[in-house]
């Protein structure tokens, strides 16, 4: 976990390291913006929940990043959680899952 965390923190500080091998710094900044703004419209800007469930690290409680990534890609049928596959690659969804699990709480 530590190995994944470190680059993520660096990316958050906008240092020129990619969050994972596949995702460049610019895209990571875009993804972070997307999580806060677009996911935030249902989950709250601080991820404490709204129409969508809370997505704070505490609420996600160490969930498997791959499982979260697949929820993000395919949505939750019969709920308001839409599939993001048309807009995100699998690597990007995994990046978001890891980002959500390790966000600093404000």
């Amino acid at each position, binding site marked *: 976990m530590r190995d994944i965390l470190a680059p993520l923190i660096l990316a958050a500080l906008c240092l020129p390291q990619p969050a994972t091998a596949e995702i460049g710094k610019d895209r990571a900044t875009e993804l972070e*913006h997307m999580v*806060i*703004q*677009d996911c*935030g*419209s*249902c989950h*709250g*800007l*601080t991820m*404490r*929940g*709204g*129409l969508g469930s809370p997505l704070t690290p505490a609420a996600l409680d160490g969930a498997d990043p791959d499982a979260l990534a697949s929820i993000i890609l395919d*949505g939750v049928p*019969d709920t*308001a959680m*839409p*599939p*993001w596959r*048309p*807009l995100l690659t699998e690597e990007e969804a995994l990046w978001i899952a890891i980002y959500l699990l390790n966000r600093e709480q404000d």
Partner: protein
Amino acid sequence: MKRFLAAAALALLPGFGFSETPCCATGDLGLIIERATGSLLVVDRSDRAAIGRVEGLGDLSHASMTYSPDERFAYVFGRDGGLTKVDMLTHEIVARTIQAGNSIGGAISDDGKLVAVSNYTPGGVKVFDADTLALVADIPAPGKTIGLADLPGRRFIWAVWDSGEAYLGDFSGAEPVITNLGHIGKNPFDAVVTDDAHTYLIGLFGEKGVTAIDLWDDTPKPTRFLNDYGKDKEDMPVYKMPHLQGWAFTEGQFVLPAVGQYDLLWVNRETLEQVATTPVHGQPVFIIAQPASPYVWVNFATPRNGVVQVVDSRTHQVVKTLEPGKAVLHMEFAPRGAEVWVSVRDENKIVIYDTRTFEKKAEIAAQAPSGIFFTARAHQPGL
């Protein structure tokens, strides 16, 4: 700016009554929600200028507000359950309470005495004294409450996402009287009262259709319509829930957003029959009627949210497509319709258009702006 300074200076002088020095009126002011920074930008509509900023309002994603009848105070409903009363003249927070864990919107009673807030967690409606923000009533609900609106006679109406029921609350007597109006359909996502307070229209997410409740009826009950719109097409993902506050009512029609379709649906107000469909640029979010005109303006859900379209309610045709910039979140008209203010979140600006020429009149810098609220809303039922 001059007026803002003058107001601030006056506020510093003890005992210097505003009644003796009518320097400041609020009728052409407004507030813009700066959602990421939890602040409000105070704007002067006539000067097309920002004249101040109010900070410290918490999580303002999905925030909305309503105004006191004298247009002096704004009541701001924040996502984090914060209810904040803001003075439009001094640009100060005069009262603030964190009244729930998570809230979605609110309304003010027709007499301006009560402010009601619609909450997600715990679900329900809380009612406050508009003066002091002291709690007056706490009405629990079996889930997330949505679509809270005021009705004449100190009443409010709302719906519950989880249970699919609507409720009418009468707060005119000593004790509130709450009436369950019955089942309205699966997962109502938002609702709105028509400008004449005749119909409560409820949009459904969990199934196709819209529900109407005739509020002029002695025993209001739900009626379903538009049950099979877009049935020959596959639904697309909805990346942002449509908002119904601006549902437009023009030319004897309601115009409604199709959920999961890039369409506007036009419905005859009397018969509730669909009369037309307008294909548009994306998933409609706000559809707002331009006052004193046959036109409605539409914005769209992410990722197709860089565009605004103008549609003629007589022909149901798109007559203009504008590109104000990245992430258009809201539009607010000058009360007589001459201008529209458009918030462009990702470009940190408000763009002002002339509604007749579509000419850009001005831009105002704002931090990640979302909702725009002019004080003229104080006099519109349902807002």
